[in-house]
């Protein structure tokens, strides 16, 4: 698909020429620390940890979109399919140097999955063996918040959630992204 190739080239170019880089392990370890800090703070209530990670992601997403637009210098996506390509081939590429696979579209083009073959956040990670974390914790949940926050800033209301994770013993790490609606530009009430 043409958009897909264009996006891939753009992502590659921005990553090579316009991105300051740090060692991935610094980020991996720092993220791991956040998750374990949250687990301690919330007494291993993993539902709350997921929620807090999502919230932190949302805060990041709202600020990250600006960095993304400035670096990629790209315009508005024509449709949700293009948006998905941009997220995977440009967004994930220029921030984390990975390109999750876009797949499993629904017929109405409002829902797709991102499959993560590699995930820098989850290197070295083993979920706690307490009989619950494997069923309840979404370790990389910050990604969901980031997507939601970033897309909201470009007038897309979406929902993102993980449906499987290799850390839980699943075969793939899969995130489901659903378009809820495009947010209309709200003009200030008539003040003429």
């Amino acid at each position, binding site marked *: 698909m043409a958009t897909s190739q264009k996006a891939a080239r753009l992502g590659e170019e921005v990553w090579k020429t316009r991105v300051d880089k*740090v*060692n991935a392990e610094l980020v991996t370890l720092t993220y791991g620390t956040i998750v374990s800090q949250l687990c301690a703070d919330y007494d291993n209530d993993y539902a709350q940890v997921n929620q807090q990670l999502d919230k932190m992601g949302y805060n990041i997403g709202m600020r990250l979109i600006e960095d993304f637009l400035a670096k990629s210098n790209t315009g508005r996506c024509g449709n949700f399919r293009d948006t998905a390509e941009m997220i995977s081939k440009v967004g994930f590429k220029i921030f984390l140097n990975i390109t999750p696979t876009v797949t499993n579209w629904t017929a109405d083009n409002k829902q797709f999955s991102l499959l993560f073959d*590699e995930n820098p956040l989850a290197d070295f990670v083993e979920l706690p063996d307490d009989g619950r974390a494997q069923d309840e914790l979404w370790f990389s949940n910050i990604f969901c918040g980031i997507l939601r926050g970033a897309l909201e800033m470009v007038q897309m209301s979406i929902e993102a959630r993980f449906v499987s994770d290799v850390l839980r013993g699943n075969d793939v790490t899969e995130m489901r992204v659903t378009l809820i609606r495009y947010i209309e530009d709200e003009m200030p009430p008539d003040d003429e």
Partner: protein
Amino acid sequence: MIGVGKAKQYANVLDKPLGRGRQEVSLSAFAFLFSEVVQYNQTQVDNIAELERRLEDAGYAVGARVLELLCHREKGNRRETRLLGILSFIHSTVWKVLFGKVADSLEKGTEHEDEYMISEKELLVNRFISVPKDMGAFNCGAFVAGIVRGVLDNAGFPAVVTAHFVPIEGQQRPRTTILIKFAEEVIHREARLG
């Protein structure tokens, strides 16, 4: 590893080969993440000292893992047992891996035998941070101090590690000095080893 297609899945994380650690991500990714760490921890505390302590604890956990990781990968499963050895391990190896460069300087304190300092003109964690006036001497370097303490403590060199801003003449931004004060037993042991 990046770019080799579908990663093979391992049942146990310990079965997985240790990467060479050359993978990179964007600096923004770290900056965004770290600023969330600071902001989240700010919601959990009432005062600056506690905030610094929490950041230091977060760093400690990173340090403990960095020591283990680097001893396996860079040093053939050996760790330093001498004071200067471990300090230069931090100043060179650890700094290089985490921050992409060796630290600007490593000095011994002039007034106290048990004090050492690692200084950095522009510490990565402070690069995008400006501390509001009402937060006084708060220093995000506490996170890095925690990393240093984590490495030292787990290598058998307990120490108190703190981060300080030190103004440099003619420069707008101060440099960050990580002050390491070793526990008494470490100094005694070192003296005994001669």
